[in-house]
């Protein structure tokens, strides 16, 4: 094997005979897809450079490359490179699935077909840059299954379309939906202790693990069911139920404790916690900023470019 750069496959191959054997197994396939070994090794290097930490340990490198879906990666990259044979295989394996997934996401046949067709065009790469066809498949890195990746890409596209369409909703439609004339939120002057409650709440939330905050947000903000959250985290429904109960108790306890540390009596702290959030000063601008400040999927194009490169 030729010498490769820092995070390269060669070094991985040295410590991971398993990957080496997988590469050997794949050789026939990559050749069938029209992808040379050198080309594939370069792709793996690029993926390693993107996802591995700056100074990865040998174990990290080994685990990382072992977790990649090499066969699907080879197929996707061969498709992105425009190899006809790879496209034939891709079509056999994924075309029907693509439409099925779109139907599941869009829930309506014409919208589903439109969604799947648009993604299919993106996957094939209808646009060109510097004379090279840009295929969305070039951004697939084999971190998850290709089918799962297609699901996510379709879901992203669906969400983007929904957001675009929402901006184009007419005022009449908004009036009908009761949006335009919705009652204004009362703007009350924040009481001194409100800030203390907000700070205590922020402190308690920040102390929670990310997964707990994800569960809270999914359940209370997104109104996902216990089963949906459980499926996302691959745990049992009852685990989520118990965790939510525990979180509610823990948060309340911690906020009360913080408020008491800040000089409130127990009764004052409990009253402050019972207060309706609408009575508090909430910075709507900041709330909305979460939705719009970051460009949705801003790194998509960058990834596509990286994939092309």
């Amino acid at each position: 094997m030729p010498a490769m750069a820092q995070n390269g496959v060669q070094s991985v191959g040295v410590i991971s005979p398993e990957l080496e054997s997988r590469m050997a197994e794949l050789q026939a396939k990559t050749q069938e897809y029209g992808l040379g070994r050198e080309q594939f090794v370069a792709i793996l290097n690029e993926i390693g450079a993107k996802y591995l930490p700056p100074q990865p340990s040998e174990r990290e490198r080994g685990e990382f490359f072992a977790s990649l879906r090499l066969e699907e990666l080879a197929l996707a990259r061969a498709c992105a490179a425009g190899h006809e044979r790879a496209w034939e295989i891709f079509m056999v394996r994924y075309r029907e699935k693509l439409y099925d997934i779109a139907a599941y996401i869009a829930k309506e046949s014409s919208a589903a077909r439109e969604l799947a067709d648009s993604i299919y065009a993106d996957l094939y790469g209808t646009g060109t840059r510097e004379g090279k066809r840009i295929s969305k498949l070039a951004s697939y890195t084999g971190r998850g299954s290709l089918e799962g990746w297609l699901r996510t890409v379709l879901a992203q596209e669906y969400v983007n379309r929904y957001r675009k369409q929402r901006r184009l909703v007419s005022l009449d439609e908004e009036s009908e939906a009761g949006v335009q004339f919705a009652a204004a939120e009362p703007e009350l002057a924040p009481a001194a202790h409100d800030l203390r409650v907000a700070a205590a709440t922020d402190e308690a939330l920040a102390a929670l693990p990310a997964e707990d905050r994800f569960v809270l947000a999914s359940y209370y903000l997104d109104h996902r069911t216990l089963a949906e959250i459980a499926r996302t985290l691959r745990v049992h429904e009852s685990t989520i139920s118990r965790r939510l109960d525990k979180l509610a108790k823990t948060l309340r306890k911690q906020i009360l404790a913080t408020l008491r540390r800040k000089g409130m009596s127990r009764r004052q702290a409990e009253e402050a916690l019972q207060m309706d959030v609408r009575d508090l000063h909430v910075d709507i601008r900041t709330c909305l900023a979460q939705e719009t400040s970051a460009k949705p999927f801003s790194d998509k194009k960058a990834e596509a470019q990286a994939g092309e490169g």
Partner: protein
Amino acid sequence: MGVPKIVLGRLRRASNPGNHPGPDLLTAFAEQALAKRERLHVLEHLAQCSECREIVSLARPEIAEPQTSLKLFSLRSPILRWSAVAACVVGAVVTTRHLAQKNVETRVTAKAPFSDTKDASQGVDLKTDLTAKLQPQPLAKQDSVLSHGLAKQRKEAAANSRALAVNAEKAGTAKKEPLAAAVPAAPSPALLSKAMDQERQKKITYDSLGSAARTSDEAVMNETVATSASAEVADARPGKAKDAKDPRMKAPMAASSGIGGAVAPVTANQMIESRAELNRAVDLTPRWNLSSEGILQRSFDGRTWQAVPVADNAIFRAVSAVGPEIWVGGNGGSLYHSSDSGQHWTQVKPAVNGSPLTADIVGIEFADAQHGKLTTSNRETWTTSDAGQSWTREK
């Protein structure tokens, strides 16, 4: 206990989550393929970003993930739980009935010589045999199976039958015929139960009197009593008369009326429903599917899917099921066959003229257990007409 409203307000007012993770990371997160460090990073983002949570939720596969145990057998559903209880009751009743029927059959064969008074000595011998057969062992066994309440009810039924015998004697033989006509042809447990009680009485009579001729008369009388008692039981349930005509209803009806009041809470309709539930559960045919990772899955209810282990490191692309005959194929021409609904698997290596199938199997179609067709990624079609023993290849 809910979360205080301020918590929701502050949760919504999360800080700017920054760059969104790409579809690669979100997919790997959903498939649990991320390292701990990356998973925490993605979770941190998801906790703050409703848009990405939405995408992860939309991209979640339609099929439920396979669970370690099938719900079908976990008896979580109250219907299934009660069905199981009903099945146990039905089982106990059927067993008891079977035992009782066996005893009566023995007695019926022994009855004819007893009615014949010509050979008294033979009658005495048979009486001894019958007495031995009617020793309390089988009854004691039943009593141990059935509850004390059941035994009490049986005693009451015996007392009723004695009273009915007196009435029957008074009414004369003319009344016997219509009553007998009302009795179903098959011996009902009510009849059997009462016959057993009568046999007990018979035993006492044998012991005290020892007269073969008298025993014969007693036997005839007992038969009449049992018949009229059975008719009485049928008449005592006017509301169930229609049900009683249904042959399917005979057993449960008789079970609830004859053998025990202890089964009274389970009505005949409930029993039929429970039986239908059980039949449905038994008749469930598994459905087969492949996960996105190429793992074979089976479901009995279409909601929960169980991974079926076939072979290590095999990634399957196609599956075909015709009754218990399951064929599954995938990468590198790997093909497996099960003829017992996935209990046991055999690897099949299709080859033509010594040239094995090495391409990915992307389609399997079996019309029946013998005739099938494989489609491969290199556009070949392999067909068999002898359940995979020999193959032909077409380009």
